[in-house]
């Protein structure tokens, strides 16, 4: 009974994980193969066909290092801004008696549901009026605005779960209102802050739509745009494309490994009734 039960569970998991991880493993394996080896039609390459050549070549492509640099700079800035402004706003929503609070919450969450393609046109006009087209600041602001609603919503839930007695005790001990946020709430809500930051980072890192409109030169292009142009221009050089993709994946995977345990609790905060 116990044995058959385990067997069924493992078989089920095997089917799911083959579907989920198989295509990914194939990409990673191929990124270490020579182009001839990839095109040979053999599933498992000979040992001599493994190489780091693709990675070295990818970094030699004229603008690849710049793409990586832009992506890291923009995604990191977005992450920091979202965590900072998101936690300030969440502190306000969670701890102060604001008039019309439900409406403020709704107004800040609603944009999450608007079709991006509808926002895109006026967005472009707005950004060009502010002279922010093709600038890092423009992209950072854009990504901040699309990830902030979720962060604000999630962090408000996190702060609400922290007992108010803690702030009151700190206030009696002479803590200022900013100090309460930074010295009392931040350490306790750290998992929430990390998840909010992670979410912002991942969305910014992976965004194609907004970058394709607002970035008009190599100076501000990010990895998704670069990969798309590789895909079109390097038609048969799959070795380079796979290596470039693996490089684009690595930061999100590393970050994911750090926050993995907290991710679900954060993403569905308030969704599971207690």
């Amino acid at each position: 009974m116990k044995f058959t039960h385990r067997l069924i569970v493992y078989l089920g998991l095997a089917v799911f994980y083959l579907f989920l991880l198989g295509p990914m493993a194939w990409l990673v394996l191929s990124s270490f193969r020579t182009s001839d080896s990839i095109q040979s039609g053999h599933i498992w390459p000979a040992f001599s066909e493994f190489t780091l050549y693709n990675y070295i070549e990818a970094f030699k492509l004229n603008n690849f290092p710049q793409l990586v640099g832009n992506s890291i700079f923009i995604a990191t800035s977005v992450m920091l801004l979202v965590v900072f402004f998101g936690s300030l706003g969440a502190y306000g929503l969670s701890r102060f008696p604001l008039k019309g609070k439900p409406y403020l919450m709704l107004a800040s969450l609603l944009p999450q549901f608007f079709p991006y393609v509808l926002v895109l046109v006026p967005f472009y006009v707005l950004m060009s009026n502010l002279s922010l087209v093709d600038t890092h600041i423009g992209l950072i602001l854009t990504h901040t605005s699309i990830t902030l609603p979720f962060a604000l919503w999630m962090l408000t839930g996190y702060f609400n779960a922290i007992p108010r007695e803690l702030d009151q005790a700190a206030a009696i001990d002479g803590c200022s209102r900013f100090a309460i946020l930074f010295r009392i709430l931040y350490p306790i809500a750290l998992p929430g802050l990390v998840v909010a930051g992670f979410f912002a980072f991942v969305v910014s890192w992976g965004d194609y739509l907004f970058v394709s409109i607002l970035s008009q030169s190599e100076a501000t292009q990010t990895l998704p745009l670069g990969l798309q142009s590789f895909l079109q221009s390097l038609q048969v050089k799959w070795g380079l494309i796979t290596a470039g993709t693996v490089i684009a994946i690595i930061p999100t995977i590393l970050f994911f490994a750090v926050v993995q345990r907290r991710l679900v609790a954060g993403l569905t905060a308030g969704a599971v009734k207690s």
Partner: protein
Amino acid sequence: MDTKETAFQPPKAPKAIEYRTPFLVRLWKESFGYLLLLPALAIILGLNLYPTTYGIFTSFTDQSLLDPNHYNLIGLANYFKLFADPIFQLSFLHSVELTASAVLLQVLFGLILAHLLIQRVPGIQVFRSLAMVTWVLPIIAAVVIFRFFTLPNYGLFNLVLTQIGLGQWTRNWFGDENFAFLVVLLMHLWRNIPFYAIAFMAAMQAIPQDLYEAARIDGATRWHRLIFITLPNLRYIILVMVVLHVTFTFNNFDFVFLSTGGGPVNATEVLPTYIYKQAWSGYALGYASAGGVVMLIVLVILVTICRRVIGGYQTE
């Protein structure tokens, strides 16, 4: 008399000592909460709500990307043109089909995977921690992975098909009119099923075990326990996930645009890609905005339907 009456009066607080918080200090104290929220709200509303409102306005004009500063109000003309446009109708149909089939299958497979992941078998922790890895990848990476996996001559999928004797099935899956839509659907499933599974798993673990114990004593079968205990307890999280993903799938532009561009021969064209092309390749900003407004309305209807069908949680 006078002295007696006044003796019972409560003593008046001497005015000179009364303390009033200075106006500026009071303003600072009372508006502190609003000030905290201000930057976030300014960024969100300034960069989302304003463009959306403006976009709705644009849909009633003939604005063009070539000369965005000169336009005329043309009423509902864009909308009439839109509903008569066969490719718009096709994209509309595809969008609804994709959203409905993706979300339904995701809930179904999400429940199955969640059920597997709550089993206490050795090594289950590894499966749990690996689960959401597909969800964190940039969509362009998912597209590269799938295109590479299904390449006609040396993609693993076609190689395996050949190996197991189904060689006549090999094809360029993204380039095939009959299968491209299916591969796009598959990418949506690939990315999101683990997210559903992990969320459902967390909710399943929160269901009190004594409910199951009591049901077992009353002689309920596994099936009964699933229908009468597990699913009702998951109703709220299912609603949350469905609303999130109806929005995500219906609005998603990247999967289709980056993998097939809407082709072959419009076989995978969805509303976001069609509208995008109208604006940025066809320069018809007003026309594209009208399409965006239609999307917004459809989305509101879809979310309302989901709340009606799954909802009812508010009365609990």
